[in-house]
């Protein structure tokens, strides 16, 4: 496996969060009784005509701008194929002139992944196949719900720039962050509002040409995307190493079996007979309007990581910074920084304790948060004590000083700590001599004993500072 490289390109379908559907005024809402959010247009009744939702165009333009694409004049095409959950038996989509072209997305690692295009299209309905194996061809009958038919989608197509399952996951996670930040999608993969197909191929490490790719469908979580890509790459390598060749085809990921299986070969691929949609006119974004869309965009995750990293003195790609931004906790870093608190400490607390309970972050008031950081960096609370107070703030809010007092977390004052340390030293002169002679690992022993002697109230950072000062004073 080590002599092979995996090449991955992703196609991500995103349901846009608009009030109404793409071409009619039916509500764009998840769920609902089957076939209640429908009208002549989204049912494709004879004589009905589509009218483009301008909010969907605005969202697609926002996506293009956030992905550094050229937002250009675009037209719609019809993609023709028969499918029972597609009311017109064609899908209105974009083809050779998509709204967004040639952009890039920056992964936390700093790598830029090319975006080939992003285009608008309408979603289909949903079929439920009753009886048989739950697939259309062996079902007794099928039920179709058209509530989702005509929901606006943007399909974002990456270039084949990803090289591992890990990178593929990172890309989807980053893209989700961008879409949520731009307010165009809720990014919920499990509910199907983000659907990912992966084009996977393998090639000998160092090769400049691309191998034959397979398109993998039906991955409904980041975890299954990673598993499917890994499995598929391994399958292709095994095939080639056994003397076979990869054939271009569409493969279905089976989550339970943990493997992909062939859906249809290249020869069986549909001829979609694309042609320009005569019922719609071209979309030609006005430059002034585009500027207002750009101006309304909030900072994107990559920029936010740079801001957080600069405040905390960390790397933008470090796990802590990535976590803080992914969870949208960067406001707490900024609050700490502007209050003069320790932003580095803030990032570490956010990436650990707060991230572990991120659902409760609503309880964490900015004032309490900044006060807690100050108490910890001033040595009024030990690290362990600060963590305990933070947990309670997350659970129920409140005043950190009161919570600390209720726990008896008055950190020892400097003189009491110094007295306690002297007692610990004089109780074991032999160990103290070895420590003075350079046995650094004994620091832990003294700190541990000091902690025990003070009933856990000693600020460990202050204690180690004091210990080192004693050694310096005792040395010749």
């Amino acid at each position, binding site marked *: 496996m080590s002599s092979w490289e995996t090449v991955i390109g992703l196609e991500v379908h995103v349901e846009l969060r608009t009030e109404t559907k793409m071409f009619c005024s039916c509500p764009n809402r998840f769920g609902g009784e089957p076939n209640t959010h429908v009208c002549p247009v989204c049912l494709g009744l004879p*004589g009905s*005509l*589509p009218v483009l939702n301008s909010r969907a165009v605005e969202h697609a333009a926002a996506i293009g701008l956030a992905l550094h694409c050229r937002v250009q004049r675009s037209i719609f095409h019809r993609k023709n194929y*028969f499918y029972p959950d597609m009311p*017109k038996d064609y899908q209105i989509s974009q083809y050779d002139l998509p709204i967004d072209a040639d952009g890039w997305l920056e992964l936390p690692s700093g790598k830029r992944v090319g975006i080939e295009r992003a285009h608008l299209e309408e979603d289909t309905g949903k079929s439920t196949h009753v009886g048989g194996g739950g697939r259309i061809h062996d079902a007794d009958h099928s039920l*179709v719900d058209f509530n989702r038919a005509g929901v606006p989608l943007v399909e974002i197509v990456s270039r084949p720039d990803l090289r591992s399952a890990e990178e593929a996951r990172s890309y989807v996670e980053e893209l989700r962050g961008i879409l949520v930040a731009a307010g165009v999608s809720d990014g919920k993969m499990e509910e199907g509002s983000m659907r990912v197909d992966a084009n996977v191929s393998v090639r000998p490490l160092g090769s400049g040409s691309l191998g034959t790719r397979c398109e993998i469908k039906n991955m409904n979580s980041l975890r299954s995307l990673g598993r499917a890509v890994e499995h598929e790459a391994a399958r292709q390598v095994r095939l080639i190493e056994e003397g076979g060749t990869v054939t271009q085809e569409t493969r279905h990921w089976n989550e339970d079996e943990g493997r992909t299986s062939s859906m249809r070969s290249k020869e069986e691929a549909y001829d979609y007979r694309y042609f320009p949609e005569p*019922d719609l*006119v071209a979309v030609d974004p006005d430059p002034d309007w585009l500027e207002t869309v750009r101006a309304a965009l909030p900072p994107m995750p990559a920029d936010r990581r740079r801001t957080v990293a600069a405040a905390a003195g960390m790397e933008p790609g470090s796990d802590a910074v990535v976590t803080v931004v992914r969870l949208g906790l960067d406001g707490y870093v900024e609050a700490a920084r502007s209050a003069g608190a320790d932003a580095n400490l803030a990032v570490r607390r956010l990436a650990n304790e707060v991230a572990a309970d991120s659902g409760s972050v609503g309880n964490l008031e900015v004032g309490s948060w900044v006060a807690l950081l100050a108490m910890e960096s001033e040595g009024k609370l030990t690290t362990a004590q600060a963590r305990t107070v933070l947990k309670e703030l997350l659970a129920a809010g409140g005043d950190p000083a009161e919570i600390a007092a209720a726990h008896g977390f008055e950190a020892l004052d400097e003189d009491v700590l110094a007295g306690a340390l002297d007692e610990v030293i004089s109780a074991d002169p032999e160990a103290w001599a070895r420590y003075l002679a350079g046995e650094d690992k004994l620091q832990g022993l003294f700190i541990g004993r000091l902690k025990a002697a003070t009933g856990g109230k000693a600020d460990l950072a202050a204690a180690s500072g004091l210990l080192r000062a004693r050694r310096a004073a005792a040395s010749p």
Partner: protein
Amino acid sequence: MTSGVPTGGPASALAASVRAGERSAVEVVEDHLARIAAGDGELHSFLTVTADAARRSAAEVDRAVAAGIDPGPLAGVPVALKDNLCTRGVPTTAGSRILEGWLPPYDATVVTRLASAGAVVVGKTNLDEFAMGSSTESSAFGPTRNPHDPSRVPGGSSGGSAAAVAAGFAPLAIGSDTGGSVRQPAALCGVVGAKPTYGTVSRYGLIAFASSLDQIGPFATTVSDAALLLDVIAGHDPADSTSLASPPPRASAAVQRGVDGLRIGLVSELAAAEGLDPQVAARTREAAEALAAAGADLEEVSVPAAVYGLSAYYLIAPAEASSNLARYDGVRYGLREEGDDITEMYIRTRSAGFGPEVKRRIMLGTYALSAGYYDAYYAKAQKVRTLLVGDFDAAYRRFDALIAPTAPGGAFPLGSKTADPLAMYLNDVCTIPSNLAGHPAISVPFGTDRSGLPLGVQVLAPALGETVMFQVAAALEAAAVEVAAR
């Protein structure tokens, strides 16, 4: 030169008397329903007669008049609708088995506009299946006959609407024109029929044949009535993205202006089209002379790409149709023939539901759009379209309007062309260029052939040139009366 130009017509006269309270709309509609009952057994111009609904709307018009409310410019005027226009709760078949029994849950925009103008819909008229044909013989529900000679076709695809107006079943009717489907039957039935500029009349609720060519148009017995009806149905509709932001100027204002000083071109390629009946050529020439006599500057003009119109049309229209008609698959509405699996159900439903002409065009269109053929067929046909627009533009730099024959001959006997699709397609050779260009054109009755059957002459105008088109059409109409009187 305005003397002798007829003004008004039976529809405007009816509306005037109903608005003035001189005639009741109920009486008018009963009169027309009686004519339908007496005559349509033979002609079969209607697929559905909506007698009860017509009586109810007529009564409403009368109530409005009695209450001092103006019901609108078409107060109490009976109108027949081609059966590819959706009417809420009223069968709408597009002449096809595949839609038999389907009841639309909504009205086409045109239907709503007619109702708010006080018009009374008396029924849905027969047509070639999905408007694909030139004789109304491809209707799944049997042909319509020509009122001038019931052994002959009324033309098509809006043959039912043309025949209904010619027979006096309704003074006005609505048709749709994709390649001549209003103008050609108008010519063959001796009535006036117009195709407005693409985007003038909303297509919302018109069952699509070829979306980039389809346009709804009026039938009437006079040019003035046709203009009156167009004024009612034209206008921007937010439900149709291809609907023009502003409608053309009111057509009915133009009919009395005469043609003195207008520059009018006779299109050489169409006046000498392949297979043209010499009588048609003769009438077209007489029409040109009559316009010159009325004060127009008349010259021949060449529109070279017009000769490629038919070929381009028979790629573009079937291509769009193959996609527009995909939805008739048995899943949601209309006919369903059960099968063992979904593919078999599709095949059985569409095999049983579509007639041979529709199948032929779906196959042609599917082929033209297929991978590897798209550039050679569909893309090339679109280039012809661009060329044609260029040629028309050049002509309109020199001329205000153009004239040409409407159809290559008069009404032909039923069954005489059904075995030869190409002969049938040639019927549209003179009308297709206006659809490809998106321009307006109107057919006005002008003389007869050797059998005494009506012929038509077309007036063509540039995009949004409805005013000059109706101006010339009215002059032709007046000249036709003088020629007939000679």
